[in-house]
């Protein structure tokens, strides 16, 4: 019963940790707007966490610059399992307009397994919520498959 409770809860309380990997701030603003009264992602239990140790979902924005790559990877590494990695905006998925630049190391999927991609430049808040919701489903699946 306890196990079931945990599994149920895992999907209902996803805490986000947001990493800016060289983003233009468009996505960052959009992510914050998801938590505003208009969209209110908190009704699904979403909350911004301050430290990767508390996070369930890592939201990465920006095209993963050379400078930020080791930091991004380290921070992702520090998130306890089960965790979900969500890329937000086109940058971390393809490099977007920065693709091919000498300073861009992306896409993120080259380095870690990405669970959800929310495309768009920037994605609409509705899309972000949808993507995050999808991530919670994946999170729940991961939790079921996880041995403590």
């Amino acid at each position: 019963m306890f196990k079931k409770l945990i599994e149920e809860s895992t999907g209902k309380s996803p805490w986000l940790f947001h990493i800016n990997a060289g983003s233009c701030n468009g996505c960052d603003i959009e992510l914050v707007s998801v938590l505003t009264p208009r969209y209110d992602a908190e009704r699904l239990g979403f909350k911004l966490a301050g430290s990767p140790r508390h996070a369930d979902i890592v939201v990465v924005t920006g095209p993963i610059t050379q400078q930020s790559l080791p930091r991004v990877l380290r921070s992702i590494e520090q998130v306890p399992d089960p965790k979900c990695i969500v890329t937000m905006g086109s940058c971390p998925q393809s490099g977007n307009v920065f693709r091919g630049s000498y300073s861009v190391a992306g896409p993120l999927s080259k380095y870690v397994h990405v669970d959800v991609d929310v495309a768009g430049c920037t994605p609409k808040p509705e899309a972000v919520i949808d993507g995050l919701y999808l991530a919670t489903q994946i999170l729940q699946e991961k939790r079921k498959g996880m041995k403590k």
Partner: protein
Amino acid sequence: MNFLNPQHFPIFAIMLYFLGAFLIVLFGKNRAARNCIAFLATGLALTLMILLVKPIMIDGGIIAYWMGSRVPAGGYAIGIALEVDALGLFFGLLIATAVFVSCLYSFSYMSEDDNEPQYYTLFLMLCGGVMGLVLSGDLFNMFIMVEILTFAAVALTAFRNRVTGALEAAFKYLVVGCIGSTCILAGTIILYQQAHTLNLAQLATIIPLCKGTNVSIAFALLFIGFCTKAFIVPFHPLAADAHGAAPAPVSVLISGVLTKSGIYGIIRLAYFLFQTMNLGTMQFWLVFLGSVSMFVCVTMALAQHDFKRLLAFHSISQIGYVLTAIGLATALGASAGLYHAMNHTLFKGLLFLTAGAVLHETGTTDLGKLGGLSKKMPHTTVLFLIGAASISGIPPFNGFASKWLIYQAAYEKAAETGNIGFAFVTIVALVTSTLTLASFVKVTQSVFFGQLPKECENAKEVSFGMRFAMGILAVLCTVTGLFPNLVQTYLTGPAAKTLFHVTRYINAMLGEGYAESAMGASAPEAATRTIEIVGVWNPVNWLALLMIALLAICIVAIASKYDAVRENKSEKVEAKYSLFYGGEDTVFSQVGGGDLFWGFKHNWRHYFSFMHDLHSGIVNDYSLWAVIALALAMVYALIVL
């Protein structure tokens, strides 16, 4: 002569220390002989003190011992006397315990110093001086003992004279200490002029009959003299300097034993010698000084960045509690004050010893240079935490038990007299306790937790001997905290009771009925004050409940695999287990003691900078404070008493 008669125990206890000191000079070259003598002297003295508990504390006897059997003739005390009542024995017990533990600790702590024989000689002289002071029944003997202990303490402060500031601290202490001793001498002699006797009991009888300017001045002189020994504000910088430089076991003696001798002197003065000079007026003086010491020293401690210096300021802050409680002149206040005096000896001794352990292993006590020792010295950390919890008044340790009584006493006094000033004293006491906690959080963070600096990599757990000595004190801290009722019944209660039975003290010395006949109507009535505690606090039950709750929570936690943690297994620290620095690699970034509590210090910045300037470190300034304090005390004594 029957040597097993308890009558002789007090003089034996004093003699043991001095004899030990003498023998160490003779045979101290050999390490084993030296340690053996020191151990025997301190151990036997402690045993004698414990043996005296039954006849004095429980049966309520008073031992009056006349040297050379020169009993009083014609109502005049001519000979030199030892008089041990419950109060004296209480302090004697404290001293013997602290000395014994500190001696045990010294065996391993001082083993790397040179001149060890001299150390033990001075050490035992200091102990003998303090023991003689508290067991003496003669004012001039008290002065001699004060001088002996001051010398020994000064010499011991300067013992490690290569340590920065050791000589400086010793010199300052000597100068101001001598001003204090001279005050005691001058006060003694003025009293002698009035009463033509030096016996405490007889003085207590005669002084009330010859009130006047001279007696008031004598009071002021003696009071300031004992204040310098207890390091009450404005003499607190001396304590801070001396503790910072002295070896840890000596710090234990200075804070746990020497300050107690000052407190003992003040109690004898206020409650016995000058008991009829209206305690009420003395109250304000004592309570005021106590509260000021309490608050000033705790704020000074917050601003320190040296482990031992910080502890030194706390020491005086706690003495402030004791003085405040004593000054309330209620049965509960006296009992609470003595209780706190005892606890102060125990927890402050423990803390100084842990500071010594840290110094021993790392070579520094600078809070900015230490950190993360909890992984290297786990036992010391636990012992330190017990001491820190005790001094900060965290239940269920002993500091809380006595501080709680002090709050009650102060507030009861406020309610009884309707004087809102005592309510503010209660508030100061309560807030000071939290400030104490704050500064110990600072020490905890910057010495035992946080990150380990490179320089401390080689630190390891200290030797068993040192841990054993600390362990004794830690156990005592816990036990006296858990059973406040027992402590009150068998130790502080009888001792506090004697404060209000001056006539008994006089009669035990000079024969039954002496006080009544000599003093006539002015004989203080044998006050039947009882200890009334408003609040309720039952540490054992609380601890039992906490243990049940903790156990239950632990069972639930373990059942749900709380302890199934992921930790770094490989040699190198993997990214997953490195600290979070916003994604950066781990760097050394210990948050040192000086960086903490900005929010508090910022609001008090003017006060702190003022205090910093005031503690200039110039010996002239400190002497000036002493003179000013003396002048104020005299003015107060002349006007009010």
